């Protein structure tokens, strides 16, 4: 094999982001197999990873993990550039913005559960706005708001609790650069793909 003229040397941070993104992508794909009562109501298990990364590694890494997950997850599910992709993307961007604000709430009072629920509301809010403006140009979409809001509270609570538990139980030694999520698959092709963003 011809040696590449461009040498990309991933830093520890790159590897960490790639591992977390891979874990989130696995959860996204696994979640797609769960039958859903209503289109749009999803547990959003991958957000557990985002919450853990946010708490432990900060907002910037959470943004990377979340957006890589949306991108690669949609590629794997054949949703890339389909309406669902833009809904996911808008929800993820809104959630990340809200998380960026929510993480500055006093830690003594507000934990991952608060972050999770607030982000879930931002998620449904952005998705409903995009759906209303683009996919279903009718106020009828807002008729489903109560269902989405309840789902945001319930799944936000569950995801937040799982994230809080993971944060409490996993060793907090960042030195090893080991992934806090045990469900991480072998860092394989996804790992390399996630490393591509040039930096």
């Amino acid at each position, binding site marked *: 094999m011809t040696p590449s003229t461009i040498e990309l040397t991933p830093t520890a941070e790159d590897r960490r982001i790639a591992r977390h993104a891979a874990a989130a992508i696995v959860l996204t794909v696994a979640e797609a197999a769960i039958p859903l009562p209503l289109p749009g109501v999803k547990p959003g298990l991958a957000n557990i990873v985002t919450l853990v990364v946010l708490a432990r590694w900060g907002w910037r890494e959470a943004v990377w993990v979340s957006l890589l997950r949306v991108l690669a997850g949609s590629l794997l599910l054949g949703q890339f550039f389909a309406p669902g992709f833009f809904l996911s993307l808008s929800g993820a961007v809104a959630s990340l913005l809200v998380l960026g604000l929510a993480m500055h709430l006093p830690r*003594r*009072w*507000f934990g991952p*559960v*608060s972050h999770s629920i607030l982000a879930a509301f931002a998620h449904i809010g952005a998705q409903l706005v995009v759906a209303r403006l683009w996919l279903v140009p009718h106020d009828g979409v*807002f008729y489903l708001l*109560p269902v989405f*809001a309840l789902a945001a509270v319930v799944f936000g609570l569950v995801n937040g*609790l799982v994230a809080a*538990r993971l944060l409490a139980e996993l060793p907090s030694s960042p030195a090893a650069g080991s992934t806090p999520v045990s469900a991480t698959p072998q860092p394989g092709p996804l790992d390399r793909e996630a490393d591509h963003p040039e930096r």
Partner: protein
Amino acid sequence: MAQWRALLLPGDMMVVAAGLVVCAYAVLSLWRGGAPDGAVVRAGGRVVAEVDLNRERRIDVPGPLGVTVIEIQPGRARVASDPGPRQYCVRQGWLTQAGAVAICAPNEVSLSLTGRAADYDSLNY
């Protein structure tokens, strides 16, 4: 269970409660089927008043027999008094559903409630 409870901080409980309040508010404001949002008063077939149901007021509507008094309250409306002989429209009492109509035929006055989800598309006599 207690292990999980310990992960909930006081602020988290507040956020959960606030989320549930938002849910309840969304249900009440978006799923109120048939709630009226306005009233239309006609005399002799012409619309003489179109009002919302947000605040209390009285409307006097002149007709061939005299004055019919319409009373509006938040969320409901009625014919308070009418010079007609049989008083059907007065005895109908408060109208609370979108699409509900009270007709004082002798005095040619009608009161109907409008709303997004009216039970009838139109009424014909």
